[in-house]
């Protein structure tokens, strides 16, 4: 039963990584077509995020297989998992930082009204930032960065009012929520339900982005 649950978790991670690569690839295509620096940053962020998830997936799969065969090597493998989780967290933070940089650079190029909106979004993340000095946890940094990105995507939704912008907002919002669940998991070590919820919401976030991509790809230009 627990093995099946583990497999479901691994599968969710795999799908999340795959979606991240797909979105990254599309952003690269967009960058090649338009030369937009924002799209290049988006491409880099999604690729880094996908690689991070994929690395953890490989390590966890290896860990699960070896652990299943030789239980005695648990302590050695725990070191490997710790290293992988650390690498994964850092890659995630790089990716989220790139999302934030994308939006900060974008704010410089847009009009006064939108710039004001960005200022509001930055102000909204201050309480999170303040806590960072007191709780040096990577998950909190991730929540802060994604908080900024989510607020910006919400402002974008208010300006554009389209379903595509709504899907991006929900995508980033759910990804942020997943980190809240991961953080709760840290405090409740005996229960793995938060870990499952975290991975489920992370996957849901990526699915939102995939739906947006599918919608955008379906656009057709009428022939004369």
């Amino acid at each position, binding site marked *: 039963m627990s093995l099946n649950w583990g497999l479901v978790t691994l599968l969710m991670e795999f799908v999340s990584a795959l979606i991240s690569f797909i979105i990254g690839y599309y*952003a690269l295509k967009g960058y090649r*077509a338009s030369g937009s620096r924002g799209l290049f940053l*988006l491409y880099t962020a999604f690729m880094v995020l996908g690689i991070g998830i994929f690395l953890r997936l490989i390590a966890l799969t290896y860990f699960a297989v070896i652990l299943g065969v030789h239980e005695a090597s648990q302590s050695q493998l725990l070191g490997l998992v710790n290293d992988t989780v650390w690498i994964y967290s850092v890659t995630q933070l790089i990716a989220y930082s790139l999302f934030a940089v994308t939006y900060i650079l974008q704010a410089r190029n847009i009009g006064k009204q939108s710039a004001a909106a960005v200022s509001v979004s930055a102000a909204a993340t201050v309480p999170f930032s303040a806590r960072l000095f007191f709780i040096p946890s990577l998950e909190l940094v991730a929540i802060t960065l994604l908080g900024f990105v989510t607020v910006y995507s919400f402002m974008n939704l208010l300006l554009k009012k389209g379903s*595509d*912008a709504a899907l991006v907002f929900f995508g980033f919002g759910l990804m942020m929520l997943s980190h809240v669940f991961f953080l709760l998991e840290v405090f409740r070590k005996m229960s793995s339900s938060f870990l499952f919820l975290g991975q489920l919401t992370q996957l849901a976030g990526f699915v939102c982005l995939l739906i947006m991509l599918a919608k955008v*790809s379906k*656009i057709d230009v009428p*022939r004369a």
Partner: protein
Amino acid sequence: MSREHKEYRSKTRIYADILNSIMKHGGKSGPTRILYGANLSYDRLMKHLSQLIELGLVQEEKEGDEVVFKLTDKGRAFVLEFTKVEKFAEAFGITI
């Protein structure tokens, strides 16, 4: 149409605006209509149009005394691709 905030347009963006303007007029249009649609001066429009012809995105044709510019299949494909990219970028709040 005066704008308080003057936006920088990339070359690709200008190409897309020209091609979209032609597309809106049924895939074939004279320079006057295009320059209004793409918000360009006549000289700049002609310069960009000659580049678009070189790239095979637009074709120049004569209709009586008038010169018209027609979208090629390659031009149409460019508009389609650019529209998708634009929608994708807009969803993330990125202006291209």
